[in-house]
C-alpha cells in the first residue's frame, strides 16, 4: 500500500483548519493562527512540488491512483493526477499561501474564520483537480460554493450581499444540470469512474444533451458570455484574497473541466458544438474587452479582462489542436498568476486610499516607484508581451486557431490589441500623469510583505515567459493522449456512420 499522497494533499488544509478552530490564539490579531495557516499551506505547496518531482512526465496514465469504496455499489472515491491536473494543483498550492500572507492588513475582523475558510476552500479546489470520479468531482466542485459564499458575504465590500447571492445562485443553477447529467451517465454507462468512461465511451446519441448539461455548469464557472455577469460583481465585492482565489483558481476549474470531461467524455458532441464555443468565445474576447475599456473601477476592469482571457482559453481548447490545448492550459496557469498579481496590486492601493475608482488616482510613479515597477510587469504580462508568461499562452492559442479557422483567429487577434489598449490605458491613468489628489502624497510605497508576495509572482511570470519548457514538458504527453483519444473517437464515429 503506497502512501496516499493525493489524499493527504487534499486533507492537509482541512486538518490545519480544524487545528486553527480549536487552538487558542493570543488575542492580538490572531498572529499564531496566521502562522499555522501559512505553515500548513506552505507545507502543502512543498508536498505538491515533491509530487511534481516524482511524477512521471512521459507517462500518459493517471498516477498516484487511490481507489476506495465510498457510496456502496456505485461510487468510489477515486483520485489521481495526470500531466494536466498536476499543474493546476501546483497553481492552487502556490496561490493559497500568497492569499494567506496578503490578509495581513486587508481583513480587519474575524481573521481566524477567514483563514479557516481559505484553507477549507483549498481542500475543495485540490479535490476538484484530483478527482477521477464524476460524483466526487461534483461534490468538490459544488462544495466550494459554501466557503466562497461566506468569503464574499462576510468580508466583502458595500454590495457584498447582492454579489454573494448572485455568485451562489448562478453557479448552483449551472451545476444542478451537471448533476442530472452525471446521474444519467451512471445509468447509461454503468459507472461514473472517469478512467472507465474513457475506455468504454458514451453512446453518441446521448452525447449532445449531456455535453450541454456539463456546458451549462462550466460556462457559468468559466465564465463565458452571456453568463459572465456574476464575475465582475463577485470580484468587486470580494476581499482581495477572495478575488485572488476566484480569479486564479476557481475560474480554472471550468477550463480544466472542459478539457477533462467535455473533450474526454463527449468527443462527438464537442465536435458538433465547436461553432457555438467559437462564437461565444469571440464575443467574450471582443465584447468584454470593449466593456473593460469603459470601466471606472479597477477591479471591475480586471474582472472583465479575466472574462476576455478565459475566452482565449475556451477558444484554444475547442480548436482540438495540440497547440491550442497546450496554449489554453498555459494561458490558464499564466492568467492564474497574472490576475492574482493584478488583484493584489489593486488591493495594495485600495488599502491605502480606500477607493478603487481609477479617476481618484494618478501620478503614483513619483510616490510609489517600486509599486509602479511591479505593476508594469504585471500589466505587460496581462497584455501578453513576449518574455512574459502571458505571451506563450496567447500565441499558442492563436496558432492553433489559425490552423483551424482563419476568420476566427483574425477576430481573436483583435482582442489582443484591445487587451493592450485597456491595460495600458489603466496603467497610464493610475501611474502616470498629474497627482490628482493631495491625499495621494501620503501614500507609502510597498511594504516588506507586499514586496514578498508580489515578487514571488513576478518570478514565475518572467521565468515561464522565457523558459516555458518545464510546464510544456509536463502537459505534452497528456494533451497528446487527450487528442489521440478524441481523434480516435471522431474517426470511429465517422466510420460507423458510413
Amino acid at each position, binding site marked *: 500500500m503506497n502512501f496516499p499522497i493525493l489524499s493527504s494533499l487534499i486533507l492537509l488544509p482541512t486538518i490545519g483548519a480544524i487545528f486553527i478552530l480549536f487552538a487558542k490564539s493570543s488575542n492580538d490579531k490572531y498572529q499564531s493562527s496566521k502562522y499555522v495557516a501559512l505553515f500548513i499551506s506552505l507545507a502543502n505547496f512543498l508536498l505538491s512540488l515533491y509530487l511534481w518531482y516524482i511524477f512521471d512526465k512521459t507517462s500518459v496514465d493517471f498516477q498516484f491512483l487511490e481507489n476506495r469504496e465510498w457510496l456502496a455499489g456505485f461510487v468510489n472515491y477515486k483520485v489521481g493526477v495526470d500531466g494536466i491536473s498536476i499543474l493546476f494543483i501546483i497553481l492552487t498550492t502556490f496561490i493559497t499561501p500568497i492569499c494567506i500572507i496578503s490578509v495581513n492588513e486587508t481583513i480587519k475582523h474575524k481573521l481566524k474564520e477567514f483563514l479557516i475558510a481559505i484553507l477549507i476552500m483549498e481542500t475543495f479546489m485540490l479535490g476538484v483537480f484530483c478527482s477521477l470520479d464524476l460524483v466526487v468531482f461534483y461534490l468538490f466542485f459544488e462544495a466550494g460554493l459554501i466557503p466562497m459564499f461566506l468569503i464574499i458575504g462576510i468580508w466583502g465590500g458595500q454590495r457584498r450581499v447582492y454579489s454573494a447571492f448572485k455568485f451562489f445562485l448562478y453557479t*448552483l443553477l449551472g451545476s444542478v444540470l451537471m448533476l*442530472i447529467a452525471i446521474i444519467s451517465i451512471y445509468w447509461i454507462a454503468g459507472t461514473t469512474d472517469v478512467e472507465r468512461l474513457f475506455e468504454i465511451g458514451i453512446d453518441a446519441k446521448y452525447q449532445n444533451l449531456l455535453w450541454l448539461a456539463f456546458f451549462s455548469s462550466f460556462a457559468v464557472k468559466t465564465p463565458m458570455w452571456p453568463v459572465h455577469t456574476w464575475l465582475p460583481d463577485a470580484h468587486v465585492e470580494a476581499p482581495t484574497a477572495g478575488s485572488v482565489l476566484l480569479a486564479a483558481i476557481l475560474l480554472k476549474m471550468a477550463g480544466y473541466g472542459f478539457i477533462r470531461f467535455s473533450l474526454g467524455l463527449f468527443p462527438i458532441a464537442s465536435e458538433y458544438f465547436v461553432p457555438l464555443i467559437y462564437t461565444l468565445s469571440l464575443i467574450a474576447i471582443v465584447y468584454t474587452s470593449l466593456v473593460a475599456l469603459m470601466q471606472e473601477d479597477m477591479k471591475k476592469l480586471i474582472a472583465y479582462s479575466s472574462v476576455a482571457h478565459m475566452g482565449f482559453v475556451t477558444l484554444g481548447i475547442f480548436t482540438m489542436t495540440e497547440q491550442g490545448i497546450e496554449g489554453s492550459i498555459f494561458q490558464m496557469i499564466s492568467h492564474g498568476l497574472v490576475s492574482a498579481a493584478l488583484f493584489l496590486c489593486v488591493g495594495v492601493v485600495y488599502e491605502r486610499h480606500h477607493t478603487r475608482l481609477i479617476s481618484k488616482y494618478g501620478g503614483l510613479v513619483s510616490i510609489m516607484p517600486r509599486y509602479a515597477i511591479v505593476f508594469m510587469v504585471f500589466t505587460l504580462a496581462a497584455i501578453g508581451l513576449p518574455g512574459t508568461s502571458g505571451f506563450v499562452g496567447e500565441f499558442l492559442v492563436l496558432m492553433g486557431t489559425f490552423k483551424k479557422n482563419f476568420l476566427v483567429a483574425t477576430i481573436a487577434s483583435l482582442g489582443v490589441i484591445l487587451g493592450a489598449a485597456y491595460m495600458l490605458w489603466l496603467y497610464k491613468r493610475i501611474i502616470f500623469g498629474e497627482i490628482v489628489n493631495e491625499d495621494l502624497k501620503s501614500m507609502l510605497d510597498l511594504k516588506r510583505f507586499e514586496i514578498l508576495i508580489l515578487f514571488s509572482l513576478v518570478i514565475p511570470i518572467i521565468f515561464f515567459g522565457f523558459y516555458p519548457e518545464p510546464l510544456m514538458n509536463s502537459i505534452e504527453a497528456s494533451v497528446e493522449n487527450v487528442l489521440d483519444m478524441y481523434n480516435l473517437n471522431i474517426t470511429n464515429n465517422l466510420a460507423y456512420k458510413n
Partner: protein
Amino acid sequence: MENLNLILPEIFISIAIMFLLMIGVFKKNSSSLVYNLSTISLIVLLSLIYNLSSISDTSIFNGSYKIDKLATLMKLLVVGSGIFVMLTTSKYLQINKLNKIEYPVLILSSILGMIVMISSNDLIVFYMGLELQSLALYVLASFNRDNLLSTESGLKYFTLSALSSGLLLYGCSLVYGFAETTNFNEILNNSKESQYGLTFAIVFILAGLAFKISAVPFHMWAPDVYQGSPTSVTIIFAILPKIAALTVFIRFLYIPFANMSEQWQIIIVFLSIASMLFGAVAAIGQKNLKRLVAYSSIGHMGYALAGLSTETNQGIQSSIIYISIYLVMNLAFFSCLFMLRRNEKYYEKIDDLSGLSKNHPLLAFSLLIILFSLAGIPPLAGFFAKFYIFMAVIEESMYFLAIIGLLSTVVAAFYYIRIIKIIYFDPEKEKYETNHHLGLKVTLAVSTIFILIYFIYPNGLTEIVSKINII
C-alpha cells in the same frame, strides 16, 4: 401467544400510557415526573422494537398487522425522534407553563397511533391508528389554551383534518365495495384493472394521505398550524406524522394498489412536482421561522414523494433515506430555535437571527451547516438525500421530474442562504441566553455532527435501508 410477543411494543406503550395517566391524576404536582417517565418509556419502547428487528417478515391477526423490515425501521425512526423531541422541549414547556400531565401522555398516544399506522395491513387497523394519532395531535396543537393563535391552529387542524379523514374513509369504503375486503393483500388479489370505482378510491385515499403529509394542493393547513402551535408541538408536526404517513403511502401504493400504478403514478408525480415548486417559491416571502419550516417541509415532502413515484425498490429506499436525513435536519433546526431565548421568551422571527454569528458563533455555525444541508449543498447530508432520490428518478428516465426537482432546489437555496445572510452578514442584536439544558445541547450537537460528517461513511444508512424490498 406467539402473536402477542410480536406486538409487545404496542402493548407496553398502551399500558404505559394508562399507567402514566393514573400517576398524573392521583399524584399532585407530578407533571415533571410523568414527563420523565414518558421519556424513559419511549426509550424502553425503542429497545423493544429493536428487539424485533431480527424477525423475518410476518403478518399477524389474520394478516391485518404486519411486522417487517419497513415497519421496524420506521417505528425506530418515529420513536427515536420522539425521544429527541422530548429531550429538546422540556425547558420550553416549563417556561411557557405547558408542562401539564396530559402533554407527554398525548405525545405517547400519538406515537402509539403512528406505530399502529406503520404496521397496519388492513384498512380498519390503518384508520384506527390514523385517528388515534390525529386526535392526540389536535389537542396538542391547541395546547396553549390562552393563546389565540394556538387555539385557532388546533381548530383549523381539526376541521381540515376531519375533512380529509372523511375523504379517506370514503375512499376506503369504495375499496371495500369493489374489492370486498379490507385486507391489503386481498385487495391486491381481488382488484382488477377494469374496476373504475377503484380508481376513484385511489384518488380519495391519496388525497387524504397527501393532507397528512401536507403535499400541495392539500397543504393549506400547514403554515398556520405550524406557526400557531407551541414550538414544542410544531417540531412533532414537522417530523413524526410525516414518517408515519410516508410509510402508509408506501404500503398503499405498493401493496393494495400495486397493479394500478398507471392510475396513481401520475397523481404522485403531480403531488411531488407541485410540492417541490410551491414549497420553494412560497417560502421566499416568509418572516416567521416556523412558517418557513412549514413551507420547506412541504418542499421536502415533494422530494420524498418523487422517490415513491418511481415504482422501484431503489426509489422507495431513496425516499426512506430522504425522510431519515430530513428528520435529523429538522431536529437540528428546531433545537436551534429552542436556543433563541431571552428573558423567558422565545423568539421565532427570521429577523431575530440577525447578526447571530457575533454573539453566538457556535450556534450560528450549526445553523449554517443545517441550512446548507437543507438546501442540499454537498458535502452535507442533505445533498446525499437528494442525490439518492435523483438517482432513482433518473434510473426510470423521469427527466422532467428530475429537472423540476433540481431547479426548485436552486429556488429553495435562495431562501435558505437568505437566512444565512441574516445570521452572518447583518448587524447584531441583543445576546440570547446560553444556559440551555443538556438534552437540547446533546440533540443539537449529535444532529449537526451527523449532518456534517455523513459523507465520510454514507454506507451505514444505505445498508440498513437496502434490506427493505417491498416489490
